[in-house]
């Protein structure tokens, strides 16, 4: 074959090779990785069948082997991994032992892949049009003379506005959703028969997620393609897949049609995952496995909350945070020559006149998509950065007037604490768990080392359910959930009045998220703290918060009791946000 292959002919040829039977059939696949600790089996005896035109979801938590399975199908495992056993038959070809040259021909043309984190999946210093063009040229789907035309055609298909202009864009000039469309364009460029989507929407906003998933579904359906959707999100799998395969620790625990697996999960692990997925009409307790409800809070613990209930603890009035649109280096250079930094009309308002209140013992959710100003707001309330204007009152004291630099030494600092988004990144890798928890005690409570400190740390660890023998471990020796507990223990060490939770469960698996959310609720009851919960996930916010504030472009679009906002949203944007969240049909 030479010259340009007409995609229609190529598409017609391939199925002829295997007129009957599935497109992809993986049998008894075992994949091993050689590590320093010896050989580890990442995937054990996995069977997977994908029929033509079918969408199969592989669902599982981190470490379940779902990504490794798909990389093995594409044969793009890294050096340490190898197929120990099993067969992978793709339209009549055994891929498990196919030579690399043959695999290269198949990759991109017959099977392709889209990845998590679309921006990182694109070459940062190559124009996106050229990146798509590379694939077309390599698989002889275009010639240098007509490649640009074909790329623009594909960009049009993935609904990129102004494709002629975007052809010359670099990934850093495009939004996350736009980058994912480019990655999809790259994967679909040669009209493959199978597309593997590995967490394609993780890290994207819910409305973007919906747009991207709808696009993928539409395009693959129009081409009669098969899709493997790898995700940790059961809701996503339920909405977009025909068949769902649940994996745990490298094994398949259950495979069933999507409809049935959610109505009638057979395996206990599937049931546990199902329960842990936040969905409408449930309470926090419902997230935990049956019979594992936490003990009721101790008697008389909620006294502190009851004492001051209803009085405002935090009051934010007319908060504004502006950033100059221009790059800082130029302004610096201008300053060097004694010129005032050029006044740009375009000053960007990250937070634009926001006012709200958090009462004592209350949890307030701050919800919105990326760039809505929710994290900026929480950072200002924490007094890590200064607001451009506005007033922040905490328990009667005007903390907005204290410069961010001085707030670290202010007595009120003790009463406001924060739990961060990434449990790993927010712990010092050279501190043990006990040292991390002791940190605020040493710095702000004037405690010094010794038995008393150790006792306090152990007490805190017990409160957050962290086993005492883990206290001397370093962060890399702890699991995600354990690290989250360390972060929470550190935040509550000084018995604060207000805890700011910045997406504390975003990096956690759903089953761990369920436990952490319950822990937070329990601690709130016991210690009578108030929470300011920053999140993009309305369902999660609803479970934990009494009241919710929906933000967009730095402004509040809706505020109200959580149930009310979720069940009867008044604002059109809130409705759109809620509608975009996929959830299992339960």
């Amino acid at each position: 074959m030479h010259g340009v292959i007409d995609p229609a002919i190529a598409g017609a040829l391939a199925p002829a090779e295997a007129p009957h039977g599935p497109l992809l059939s993986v049998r008894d696949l075992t994949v091993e990785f050689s590590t320093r600790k010896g050989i580890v089996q990442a995937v054990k005896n996995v069977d997977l069948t994908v029929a033509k035109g079918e969408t199969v979801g592989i669902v599982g938590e981190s470490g379940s082997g779902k990504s490794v399975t798909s990389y093995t199908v594409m044969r793009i495992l890294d050096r340490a991994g190898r197929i120990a056993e099993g067969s992978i038959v793709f339209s009549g070809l055994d891929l498990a032992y196919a030579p690399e040259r043959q695999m290269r021909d198949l990759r991109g043309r017959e099977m392709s892949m889209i990845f998590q984190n679309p921006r990182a999946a694109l070459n940062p210093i190559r124009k996106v049009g050229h990146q798509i063009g590379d694939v077309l040229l390599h698989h002889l789907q275009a010639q240098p003379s007509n490649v640009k035309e074909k790329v623009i055609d594909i960009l049009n298909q993935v609904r990129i506005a102004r494709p002629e202009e975007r052809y010359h864009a670099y990934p850093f000039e495009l939004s996350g959703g736009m980058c994912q469309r480019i990655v999809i364009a790259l994967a679909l460029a040669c009209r493959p028969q199978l597309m593997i989507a590995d967490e394609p929407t993780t890290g994207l906003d819910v409305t973007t997620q919906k747009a991207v998933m709808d696009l993928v579904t539409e395009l693959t359906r129009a081409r009669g393609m098969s899709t493997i959707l790898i995700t940790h999100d059961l809701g996503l799998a339920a909405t977009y897949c025909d068949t769902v395969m649940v994996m745990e620790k490298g094994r398949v625990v259950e495979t069933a049609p999507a409809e049935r697996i959610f109505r009638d999960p057979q395996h206990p692990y599937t049931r546990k995952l199902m329960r842990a997925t936040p969905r409408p009409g449930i309470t926090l307790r419902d997230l935990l496995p049956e019979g594992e409800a936490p003990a009721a809070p101790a008697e008389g613990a909620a006294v502190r909350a009851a004492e001051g209930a209803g009085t405002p603890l935090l009051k934010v009035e007319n908060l504004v945070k502006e950033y100059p649109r221009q790059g800082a280096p130029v302004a610096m250079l201008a300053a060097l020559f004694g010129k005032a930094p050029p006044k740009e009309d375009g000053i960007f308002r990250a937070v634009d006149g926001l006012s709200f209140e958090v009462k004592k013992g209350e949890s307030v959710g701050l919800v919105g998509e990326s760039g809505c100003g929710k994290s900026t707001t929480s950072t200002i309330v924490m007094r890590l950065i200064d607001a451009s204007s506005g007033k922040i009152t905490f328990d009667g004291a005007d903390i907005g007037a204290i410069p961010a630099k001085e707030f670290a030494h202010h007595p009120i600092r003790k009463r406001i604490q924060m739990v961060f988004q990434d449990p790993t990144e927010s712990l010092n890798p050279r501190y043990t768990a006990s040292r991390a928890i002791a940190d605020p005690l040493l710095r702000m409570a004037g405690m010094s080392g010794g038995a008393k400190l150790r006792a306090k740390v152990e007490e805190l660890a017990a409160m957050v359910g962290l086993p005492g023998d883990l206290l001397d471990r370093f962060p890399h020796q702890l699991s995600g959930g354990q690290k989250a507990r360390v972060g929470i223990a550190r935040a509550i060490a000084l018995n604060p009045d207000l805890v700011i939770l910045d997406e504390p469960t975003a990096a956690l698996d759903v089953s761990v998220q369920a436990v952490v959310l319950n822990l937070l609720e329990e601690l709130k009851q016991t210690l009578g703290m108030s929470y300011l919960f920053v999140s993009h996930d309305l369902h999660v916010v609803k479970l934990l918060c009494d009241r919710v504030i929906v933000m967009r472009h730095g402004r509040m679009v809706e505020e109200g009791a959580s149930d009310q906002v979720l069940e009867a949203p008044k604002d059109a944007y809130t409705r759109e946000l809620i509608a975009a969240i996929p959830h299992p049909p339960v």
Partner: protein
Amino acid sequence: MLKLIGSRLATAVPSLIGVVIVTFLLTRVLPGDTAAYFAGPAATPQAIAEIRTKLGLDKPLPAQFLDYVTALAKGDLGSSLSTGQPVATEIRNRLPASAELTLAGLILALLIAIPYGIAAAVKQGTWVDHSCRILTTAGVSLPVFFTGLLLVYVFYFKLGWAPAPLGRLDAFASPPPEVTGFYLIDSLIAGDFETFRASAAQLVIPAVTLAIFALAPIARMTRASMLAVLSSEFVRTARAAGLTPYKVIIVYAFRNAMLPVITTLGMVFSFLLGANVLVEKVFAWPGIGSYAVEALITSDFAPVQGFVLAMAVLYIVLNLLIDIAYGVIDPRARSEA
């Protein structure tokens, strides 16, 4: 792009001012009395004082500095006390010799180190990788005067392949008519292949000496940055799209891996400027390095100041070139400016 160049040039101005001040002060605090040295061991105190007045060394430091800066503004770097020649002329005559040697060494190092670094990263853990490690360890741990002398011993003394290490051309050849000051280029312009061959023969061993020294950091950096890029997600995407290994390694991985290597080049070049001084001594190379060392030994201010200033300007120009190269390769750097 012009904006980027402009802003980089503007930031170079304060560094230049700093260099002028520091070199001036540094030469004043160095041990040794210039006047006494110049007057000779038998001079009377009156004679020394006379010379001191003549050189303006009896004035207070600020006044001396003012004199220096005023002259500098006119392009006058002063005159060498030992040779009596104006420093600016000497540097102009000697700089091409040093530049030719340094650039030859650097280009040679790049030609070897970059492919080697790429190969070591692509074939990680194989004999290529291990041999790269051995070579780079040797490169950093052997001082240039040692490798230089060793090469002279083997290739001139033992094997007789190389000409005598005595400067840019052997005594019987005459230099080509000056255009760029680089003998290799000038001889080609003049169409004089005999001189080209002769000067190339003289250049090989000192250039190799410098290259061995320079290739270690470049190869290590190339390897490390290739390894990081090869494990990145966009390389995985490129592989999943079925692109050939050549395209993945060169177009996708290498261009990205080049960015930190280019940054390292700036540092390597400054190391080379230092190493040059020793190499020029070993090979009797008539460059500015050996000129500066001689001046330093005799407490001859003007050439030392001129040398440091010339090096600083060279270094700033090189860094500007590196920033431009960075901007050409990386669109993000362009848009930041």
